[in-house]
């Protein structure tokens, strides 16, 4: 099982703090996005924005990175701290 989290504007747009996902692992970040869109077709535009960042186990990764069972996968917009 994969724990998926959303933050900031993406959390508000999707109206979701996150979901738990049962999928075949290992798989890529892109595969996770596809699985999320299959469950919620209206998330497609928002999740596939080129600016959306992904962190796996709290480290930023790219779309080709591999996800293992039990990983924490977070999606969020560009950061604006500082």
């Amino acid at each position: 099982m994969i724990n998926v989290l959303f933050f900031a504007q993406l959390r508000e747009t999707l109206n979701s703090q996150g979901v738990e996902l049962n999928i075949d692992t290992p798989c890529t970040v892109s595969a996770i996005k596809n699985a999320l869109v299959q469950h919620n077709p209206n998330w497609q535009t928002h999740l596939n924005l080129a600016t959306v960042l992904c962190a796996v186990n709290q480290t930023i990764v790219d779309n080709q990175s591999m996800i293992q069972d039990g990983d924490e996968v977070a999606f969020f917009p560009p950061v604006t701290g500082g």
Partner: protein
Amino acid sequence: MTALININVQTQDFDVAKEYAALRQNNTQDGAIVFFSGLVRDMNQGQDVKGLFLEHYPAMTEKSLAEIVDQACTRWPLSRVRLIHRVGQLHISDQIVFVAVSSHHREAAFEACHFIMDYLKNRAPFWKKETTPQGDTWVAALDKDTYALQKWDEHDQ
């Protein structure tokens, strides 16, 4: 050289005088302290701002800040690094972030402090939502913050 590193993510305010004193305490080998302090402006991206809320990703925040500071310590000979970032509700003129670096020489202190802020702006999971007369709006990330990282790639150190 192993740097003394101290990082906090907190809702409460911080005292720059106390932090500066801590950097100087029992420190006879450093000739240079550089610090950056970030404050809430009353105007941002052309809009009046009344205050802002800082959201973050708690499990990731300190980890990402520690990675950025570690990178700085690899590039420059630093003695002490202090980093504080606030989260939650903030008001005009409030302190948001504090980065202080001490080193034997000024060049390392200036560059490392600047580097840490540039990477924090692009990598650390904080998001600002501003309160404006038009309602609450998420702050847009700026291209210039992304471009700011380029100077560290070109850097021949």
